[in-house]
């Protein structure tokens, strides 16, 4: 059913597909930062490069104790600079990197343009942000560290991860009724 199409310019497709395929990008971009379209079609194993990037992230998570419940509690009690230093320096490096990418019009390794999507403000960032913060201090983990905690052998965190998936599903279910 899925056709390989080039976005953002949508080509007219068979009418039966209009309802599903053409809204694909719009639905995916809803409230999600990671939206990316590519006209390139790669074999699935090209995704292995993201495992390597993820593994670097996972190693740093463990080695800098970012997955530690104790470190999060310290952060929220202003008892340690560690997490502020981690997030702050990550943002500074990220900002400089994006500035450089934009300034020199750097392309991907496949020669595609790197695109950015502006985030639109909605009340979800306030209400959802607050709810997320409550959960963050309870579990001592945001979504990334959940995967890392399981990797360190804390298998009970699988329950936390499943519960987070259930939370996401519940949000999707009630989305249209929630204030945005």
């Amino acid at each position, binding site marked *: 059913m899925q056709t390989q199409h080039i976005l953002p310019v949508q080509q007219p497709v068979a009418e039966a597909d209009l309802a599903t395929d053409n809204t694909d990008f719009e639905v995916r971009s809803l409230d999600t930062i990671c939206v990316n379209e590519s006209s390139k079609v790669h074999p699935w194993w090209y995704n292995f490069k993201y495992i390597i990037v993820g593994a670097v992230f996972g190693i740093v998570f463990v080695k800098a104790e970012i997955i530690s419940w104790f470190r999060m509690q310290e952060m929220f009690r202003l008892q340690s600079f560690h997490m502020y230093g981690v997030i702050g320096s990550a943002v500074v490096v990220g900002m400089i990197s994006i500035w450089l990418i934009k300034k020199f019009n750097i392309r991907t390794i496949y020669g595609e343009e790197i695109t950015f999507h502006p985030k639109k403000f909605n009340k979800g960032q306030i209400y959802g*942000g607050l709810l997320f913060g409550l959960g*963050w201090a309870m579990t001592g983990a945001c979504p990334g560290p959940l995967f890392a905690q399981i990797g360190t052998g804390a298998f009970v965190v699988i329950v936390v991860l499943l519960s987070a998936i259930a939370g996401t599903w519940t949000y999707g279910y009630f989305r249209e009724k929630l204030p945005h």
Partner: protein
Amino acid sequence: MIAFLKQPWPWYVAGPIIGLIVPALLILGNKHFGVSANLRHACTACFPANINFFKYDWKKEAWNFFFAGGIFLGAIIASQLLANPEPVKVNPGLVAEVGSYGINDYSNMIPKQIFSLESLFTLKGLILLVGGGFLVGFGSRYAGGCTSGHSIMGLSNLQWPSLVATIMFMAGGFLMANLILPFIMKL
């Protein structure tokens, strides 16, 4: 070298490496750093239930599952090969506070007294693990991203809604850690 790597890494090493993930993903394939979207893709792939929010082609975002798998793998590597043999060193003020809740096991980065199967079947454990996880999943999607998507990627790209989200993340964390958690811990 290995002994050096086994020590906990300071923030000025960890933070810049995390920051470099932003351009790494962009240059490798125009991918935007973000982890919580994985939870949404998991819903879409497994239980879309005809909900509009989950009607999209998750296979186009499959890279994110590989990224999350990488985090899992990296954590295995770090904990098996580069583990710090010392207990986690935390602020004495925190040691005293969580000690009064009966948490004194620092052998792991997450306290075994909360994160264990036995604890899961207590009221406290259920609230913290299942309730906390639910809020993380619900809140991050409602906010449109988590710490990686908003606080790192969004702020790096100078998006002010991401700053709003980050401030609210911190507000929620401060509220929970200082005002609500003491009650939950005494259950």
